[in-house]
């Protein structure tokens, strides 16, 4: 089963790279590893017959957003996290907080396992089918996007304008005209 193998390789790569992202003390390595994770996710979208989302993932996420992060990391030349300082001051190191957190985490995992054991109705195959060519067509997606979701699409353009103005105002130096 090549598609099953592909799914497990891509999933492992996505989760493993994401785990390494939060394991790094140097934000530069975190950003680069996150690009690996996003590339694996794009592969998963292809196994779900969503090639357009996969390409958008690579171009917008890995291409544009991550370059923005990389730019800020280089611009700030930020100091790395100090491990000893982390051990001393992190709120999760306090014993009471840590105990409550462990209880909540175990509860969450148990709940998740219970929910997933119940979802027998969700066992329908979604990945690697060949009959999904019709629904995945970019034409159908464009039609729905510009008819049913046209208001959300237009609202999104306003959102981007607001974000752009906000970023310019926030990052401006005090006293600049």
């Amino acid at each position: 089963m090549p598609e099953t193998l592909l799914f497990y390789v891509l999933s492992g790569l996505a989760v493993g790279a994401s785990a390494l992202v939060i394991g790094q003390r140097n934000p530069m390595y975190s950003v680069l590893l996150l690009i690996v994770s996003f590339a694996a996710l794009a592969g998963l979208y292809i196994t779900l017959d969503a090639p357009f989302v996969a390409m958008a993932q690579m171009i917008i996420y890995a291409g544009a957003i991550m370059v923005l992060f990389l730019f800020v990391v280089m611009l700030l030349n930020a100091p790395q996290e100090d491990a000893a300082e982390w051990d001393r001051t992190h709120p999760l190191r306090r014993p009471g907080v840590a105990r409550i957190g462990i209880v909540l985490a175990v509860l969450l995992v148990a709940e998740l396992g219970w929910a997933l054991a119940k979802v027998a109705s969700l066992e329908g195959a979604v990945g690697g089918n060949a009959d999904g060519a019709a629904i995945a067509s970019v034409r159908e997606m464009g039609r729905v996007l510009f008819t049913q979701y046209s208001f959300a699409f237009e609202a999104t353009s306003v959102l981007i304008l607001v974000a752009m103005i906000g970023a310019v105002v926030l990052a401006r130096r005090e006293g600049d005209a």
Partner: protein
Amino acid sequence: MIPLSHYLVVSALLFAVGTAGVFLRKNLITILLSVEIMLNAVNLSFVAFGRFNGTVDGQIITFFVMTVAAAEAAVGLALVIALFRTRESLNPDAFTSLKW
């Protein structure tokens, strides 16, 4: 054939990794990256559910999530730059006072 629940498990794992990053890291940039991981985990389950239902709605919502993520990254990083200018630090614990 891969069942839907496998994709949901991967999505849940990614979301858990992102949540852990927000709680464990003490660097504003890494915290923002963890938020991006969480958004991507949700995107994956949207696309998987859309494929399961045979509609394109899941993929379209993914586009809106990507747009919001781009806006969030732009505003968030602008805030990080402004904060770094005042305190020369990216540790969230350095920003405890409301006014300085």
